[in-house]
């Protein structure tokens, strides 16, 4: 959820997508302005925060970067629950990663926060010569599903800030507090519900 106060907005954002699609690289580019050719895989999840100004407000993104492999899929709800925004990342040079992205979209539509701002990022746009997924195909899909779409490159920084900026602009400025059950394991009884910081 996003919370507002004195023109400051805290927004939980989650990155989902196939392994190696470039989720961590996008965050790293956005938060630290860096790119690592051999960015190591994400184990479990990582958390970052970054603030940016959009129009009238300052948005502090609390970013959850998840592990991409399907094997860890059961952990994902822990991270997307209560998120105000999601970036679903695929690799334009990998068709399977686009298929995977669609499945994430479906899952979020079913399970996620109904007001969630969703962005589709076609990453590795610098790899034009190895492109497998056309921008057109992705744009059509995004439109049909109410996402906004950008091709990005963590390597060249293309559209990286822009996609976060766009999300910041689209965030609803005030949200009713709902779904406070944050980090609860899927297949274990909740040990108590966690009030997400953004809903307080």
């Amino acid at each position: 959820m996003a919370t507002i106060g004195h023109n400051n907005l805290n927004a939980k954002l989650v990155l989902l997508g196939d392994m190696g699609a470039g989720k961590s690289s996008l965050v790293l580019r956005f938060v630290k302005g860096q790119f690592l050719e051999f960015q190591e895989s994400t184990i479990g999840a990582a958390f970052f925060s970054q603030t940016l100004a959009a129009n009238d407000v300052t948005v502090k993104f609390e970013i959850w970067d998840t592990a991409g492999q399907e094997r860890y899929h059961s952990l994902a709800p822990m991270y997307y629950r209560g998120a105000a925004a999601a970036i679903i990342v695929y690799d334009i040079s990998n068709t399977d990663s686009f298929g995977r992205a669609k499945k994430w979209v479906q899952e979020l539509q079913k399970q996620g926060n109904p007001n969630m701002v969703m962005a589709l990022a076609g990453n590795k746009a610098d790899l034009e010569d190895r492109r497998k997924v056309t921008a057109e195909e992705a744009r059509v899909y995004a439109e049909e599903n109410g996402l906004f779409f950008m091709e990005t490159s963590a390597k060249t920084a293309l559209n990286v800030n822009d996609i976060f900026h766009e999300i910041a602009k689209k965030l609803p400025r005030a949200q009713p507090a709902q779904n406070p059950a944050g980090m609860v394991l899927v297949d274990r009884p909740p040990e108590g519900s966690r009030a997400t910081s953004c809903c307080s």
Partner: protein
Amino acid sequence: MHETELNDLSDDADYAASLQQGSASMTRSDSSRRSSSSEPDGAEVVYLKDNVTIHPTQYASERISGRLKLIKQGASLFITWIPYKGQSSNAKLSERDKNLYTIRAVPFTEIRSIRRHTPTLGWQYIIVVLSSGLAFPPLYFYNGGVREFLATIKQHIFLVRSAEDANVFVVNDFQDPLQRTLSSLELPRAVPVANGRSSSLSASESPTDKNQVRADGVAVDGSLSSIQNNGRQRQKMHDPARDLSIHVLEKFSLVTRFARETTSQLFRENHSEGFGGNERRNHSQSSHDYHQNAASIDVEKVPDEVPVAPDPLEKSPCSNRGEEAATNVGTFELIDSKEIDKLTVWGKPRQPPLGPEEWATFLDSEGRVTDEKALRKRIFYGGVENNLRKEVWTFLLGYHAHDSTYAEREYLVLIKKSEYETIKNQWQSITQDQAKRFTKFRERRGLIEKDVVRTDRSLSFYEGDDNPNVNLLRDILLTYSFYNFDLGYCQGMSDLLSPILFIMKDESESFWCFVSLMERLGPNFNRDQNGMHSQLFALSKLVELLDVPLHNYFKQNDCLNYFFCFRWILIQFKREFEYERTLRLWEVLWTHHLSEHLHLYVCVAILKRYRRKIMGEQMDFDTLLKFINELSGQIDLDAILKDAEALCICAGEHGAASIPPGTPPSLPLDTGLLYAQQDDEVL
């Protein structure tokens, strides 16, 4: 009464002179000066002993001397120990440090027992164990007088000798005679001192032996054979940790161990002059104010209200009250954020890694490891030199049997090599055309290829384009995914293989060592995550056992799923330490010396180090995960290993009972279908 007493010998020239004379101070006899200097009204000093000393570290050179007193006020008896002001063996022990060890009027109602140690040669000491299970560091009586001390106590309160250990005296301080009787009944095996004090008291406390430390460094006491010996002799060392009677009375206490270690170390240091310079100092410090910290140290009761209580293992206190620390592990520690790597438990000092000469002593003429337990214990405390790892890891991982001979191993290597080639050939023979119709294979290869190119590429061993070692990683992982097709490949596996290939160099050997490792760690990668769940669950139980306030904090903040420790456990801290340090940690974990689950105690140890920061800054799950991920590269492995060892010993059977059977890396309970096959279908 405290403040004034801190100063009361600071201007005592006589005392100062005695200290400067070093060992001369030990022979100075000034026991039982019954000065009742600054006691409050109605308090009477019934016992006073000077030159009672603690050794905050395991080095004889670092000591804090003070005055021990028994004070009677009304019907209650109190113990105090106040360090002398301005007298310090070592500049490192600041005034404040000394302050921390001060025992300020602890009533005997809070004392469970007193253990005495009165060797015929060497210093006498006592260990005071509180009802909470907490114990003060050993108090060394440089001038003797333990017997008189106990006799004085007995005059004022009911003290019974434990039937299980003649050197343990159980305090039974009930004013009400009926209560006292009832309480005695609860201690069926304890017998009153008066009846039982014949042999051992008089035999062990010969006045002529007091204060003697043999200059040749030989400890005569049975429990203290020199720990310097390598080779066979090491196995003879008496290990008090196994002493059941100690265990019963000092369950949550480390002091006995510590006392042994300290004393061994004292003798060792007496032996070799130039100590201190080359060994890293563990500037352990302890606190004093039992009352203040009672809530945080009681592992049995959950305190009603939990302040951010300091803890001995924590690293960077965020307030300047950080020096006061109490613990549930039996000693008191001080943590100074400026001296962060000098602290901690009274655990055994880490040893140098096992080298080739010492390794040879573990093998018989045909190459069998004669004493596997001793080997594992040795590696537990020091690890293995890098050039020996290739050989030793094969035993630790269980690829080679300890009782195999050189010849048998050579043969096995050949057999296994061809077996490896056979499995490898299964995927190598898949043609490109065939692969087109073999999605599962393509996917699997794809996953592996994505990961190997981003595994440890900053190491020279794996760096650069077309690095053959990266290709080996790929081939081994792909072969493994055929060897264990049901488990397949899972992110994190490349992290586990990388160090093995780095050490083994050989493809087939690396594969089989990896197979052995995965026999234990495979469940970490189960699709239903149950291997991880059971470890995270056990971890939460251990924190509950070993750090109640921290547990309560996690509970209140809905962090009990411990997912912030996921990465630590999944890949055995691979991302948390520098490469070389990871190798050391792994070989220590693989010894299974104290527990198969030492890694969970390592988790607890790290969390305890940072507990105050975590609680003080009111970290929620998000912040905690970020904080923990960012600890990568910041953790002092040796210190953590000592802490983990201490915690593991402290937790004892309670700890073991917190970990469900079959929890990885224990071998799985049933060897049926381990990895139920499921499609890697998305969602």
